[in-house]
C-alpha cells in the first residue's frame, strides 16, 4: 500500500512523461488519486457488513440475556411446567430434549455412517453412487416443515406413534441425515490410501480393513459431523410442531412412547402466548439461554475433537 500513499503525497499536478519514441503517455494523476481513494473508502464500506453482523449478534445475545435475568435459576431448571410464570420450570422440557437426542444419536449414526461407508468404500457402480449423492443433496434442501408432514403421515398416523418421542426423534433423524452423511463422507475420503493398501496387503479383508483402519482414522471427523447434526436436531422446531405436540404437557416423559415437549417447542409456545401473559417472554428467553448453552457446549466439543484428535498424514 505504501507506494499508493507516496503517490498521493508527491504528485498533485498533471505531468507528462516523454519517451524517446513517438508515443506520448499521459498520466492523469487526479484520476489515479481518485481511484486509489475510492478503493480505500470501499474497504470500510465493505467492512460495515461485518460490523452489522457482529452488532446483531451482540444485540441478540444481550437482549436474551437481559430478558432471562432473574428467571433463570435452579428452580426454573428443576421445576415442573406451570401456566403461572412464577412457578414454571422446564425440567420436563429438558428431559424431552434429552429423550429426543437419545433417539436421534443412534439412528443418525447408524444410517448416516453406513450410507457414507457405502458411498465411499463399496459403491463401485457409478450410477447408484450418483443417484444416492444427488438424492442426499436434494434432501438437504427440503424445508424442515416438509419433514414434519412426512413424520405426521408416516410415523404419527401410519405407524400410529402419535406425537410421541419416537415419532419426533425419527423425523428429526431423517432431517439431519444429509449433514452427517456428507461430513462422514469427507472424513472417510480423507483417510490416506496407503493405510488401506497396507492393511489389504497384509491379507486383511475389506471389512477388517474398514473396521480396524478406516473407521478408527475417520472417527474424529465422523464424531464432529454427528455432534453438529445432533445440535441441529436439538434446535429444530418446525417438524415437531407439525407432528402436533400438545400445547401444555405438565408431566415428565417416562418412555419413548410418551408425549413430550422439547426446548424449542416450549420457546415457541411461550413466545406465542406473550400476548396473554407478558412474563412468558422472560420464560422463553430463559429457555433460549438453556438451549444456546447446550448448543455452545456441543459445538465447542466438536471443535475440540476436530483439533485434538484429527490425525495429519
Amino acid at each position, binding site marked *: 500500500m505504501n507506494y*499508493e500513499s507516496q503517490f498521493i503525497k508527491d504528485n498533485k499536478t498533471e505531468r507528462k512523461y516523454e519517451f524517446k519514441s513517438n508515443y506520448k503517455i499521459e498520466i492523469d494523476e487526479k484520476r489515479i488519486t481518485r*481511484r*486509489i481513494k475510492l478503493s480505500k473508502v*470501499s*474497504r470500510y464500506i*465493505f467492512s460495515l*457488513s*461485518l460490523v452489522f*453482523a457482529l452488532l*446483531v*449478534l451482540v*444485540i441478540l445475545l444481550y*437482549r*436474551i440475556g437481559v430478558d432471562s435475568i432473574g428467571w433463570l435459576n435452579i428452580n426454573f431448571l428443576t421445576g415442573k411446567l406451570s401456566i403461572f410464570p412464577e412457578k414454571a420450570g422446564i425440567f420436563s422440557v429438558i428431559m424431552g430434549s434429552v429423550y429426543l437426542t437419545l433417539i436421534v444419536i443412534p439412528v443418525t449414526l447408524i444410517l448416516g455412517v*453406513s*450410507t457414507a461407508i457405502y*458411498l465411499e*468404500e*463399496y459403491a463401485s457402480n457409478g450410477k447408484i453412487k450418483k*443417484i*444416492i449423492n444427488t*438424492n442426499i443433496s*436434494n434432501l438437504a*434442501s*427440503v*424445508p*424442515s*416443515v*416438509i*419433514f414434519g*408432514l*412426512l413424520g405426521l403421515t408416516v410415523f404419527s398416523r401410519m405407524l400410529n406413534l402419535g406425537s410421541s418421542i419416537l415419532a419426533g426423534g425419527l423425523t428429526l433423524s431423517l432431517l439431519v*441425515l444429509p449433514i452427517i*452423511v456428507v461430513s462422514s463422507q469427507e472424513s472417510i475420503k480423507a483417510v490416506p490410501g496407503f493405510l488401506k493398501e497396507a492393511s489389504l496387503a*497384509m*491379507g486383511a*479383508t475389506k*471389512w*477388517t480393513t474398514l473396521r480396524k483402519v478406516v473407521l478408527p482414522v475417520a472417527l474424529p471427523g465422523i464424531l464432529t459431523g454427528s455432534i453438529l447434526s445432533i*445440535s441441529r436436531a436439538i*434446535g*429444530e*422446531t*418446525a417438524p415437531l*410442531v*407439525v*407432528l*402436533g405436540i400438545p*400445547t401444555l404437557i405438565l408431566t415428565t416423559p417416562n418412555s419413548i412412547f410418551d408425549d413430550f415437549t422439547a426446548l*424449542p417447542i416450549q*420457546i*415457541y409456545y411461550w*413466545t*406465542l402466548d406473550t400476548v396473554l401473559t407478558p412474563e412468558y417472554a422472560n420464560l*422463553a*428467553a430463559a429457555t*433460549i439461554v438453556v*438451549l*444456546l448453552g447446550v448448543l455452545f457446549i456441543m*459445538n465447542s466439543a466438536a471443535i475440540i475433537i476436530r483439533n485434538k484428535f484429527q490425525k495429519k498424514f
Partner: protein
Amino acid sequence: MKDSMKVRDIIHENISNKKNKLDKVMPMFFLVMASISVVTTIGILLTLVIDASKFFAAVPIKEIFSTDLAPLNANPSFGILPLINGTLFTTVIAILVAVPIGLSAAVYLSQFASEKVRKLLKPIIEVLAGIPTIVYGFFAYSFVTPLLMKLIPSLGAKNVLSPGIVMGIMIIPMVTSLSEDSMNSVPEIMKEGAYGLGSTKLEVALKVVIPGAISGILSSIVLSISRAIGETMIVTIASGSSKNFTFDITQSMQTMTGYIVEFTSGDAASGTTGYYSLYAVGLLLFIFTLGMNMLAQYISHKYREEY
C-alpha cells in the same frame, strides 16, 4: 494380535476367519442403509402427492387460484394466492437484506481482510448460522418489531417487514460463505495480473474476482431464496396468520410454511379438505425449493469458469 505372530499366520488367520461372512453381509447392510435416504425422498413425494391429489380432486381449480382463503369457515374456501403473496414478500425482503450484506462481507473477507482479521471474523458469521431459527423468531417478535414500531407507527404487532429482515440476517452466513468460497477459487495469477496493470483492490474485486466467481455467487443467491421460502419458525411467530391478500408490508401475512404450522397445531381432523390442503401447500413448497436447488446446481455447472 500377538507380536510373535508371523505375517503368514496373520494372513492365514484372516483368510480362514469365520468372521469373513461379515464381508459378504456388511456391503448388503450398508446398501440397505444407504437406500433409506432414497426411500425418504420417495416417501416425501408419495405422502405429498397422494394427499394433495385428494385436495385437488375436491377443490375446483378456479377456487385454488383465488385470493380467498378461509379454511376453517363453515363454508371453507382454499385460495392459495394469499399464501404465495406472503411467502413472496418475506422472501424478497430477506433477499434484499441478505444479498448486499452477505456479498460485501464476502468481498471484504476475500479481498481486503488480513489473514488475522479473517480468522477472527469468520467464526462470528458461523455463529450466526448456528443459532436455531426459533431464537431468531423470538428476536424478531420481541425486539425487531417493537424497534420498527418506533420508526413506523402504523406497523402492526405482526407484520411482514420484521420477520423478513431477521430472516435476511439469518441467511447472511449462507451467502457469505458460499460466495467467499467461490471468490477464493479465482486464481491468484489473475488477480496479480490485474494488480500488475495498475488496478486498485476495489477494481480487482469488481472486475476480476466477482466476474470470475459469478457462478458461485449466483447459485448462493438462488440457494438463499430457496432457504427463505422454506423458512418456518421466524415467519410463523412474527408474521402472524392473517389470510388477507394485501401488498402492505406493515401488515400481517401468512406464508406457505406458516399455514402448515398453524393448521397442524390446530385441530385439523384427518380426512377433511382442510387437512389435505396442508399437503397441497407442502407439495407446492417442495416443488419451489427443489426447483431452486436444481437451478442453483445448473447455474454453478453452466457458468462455472474453468481455471
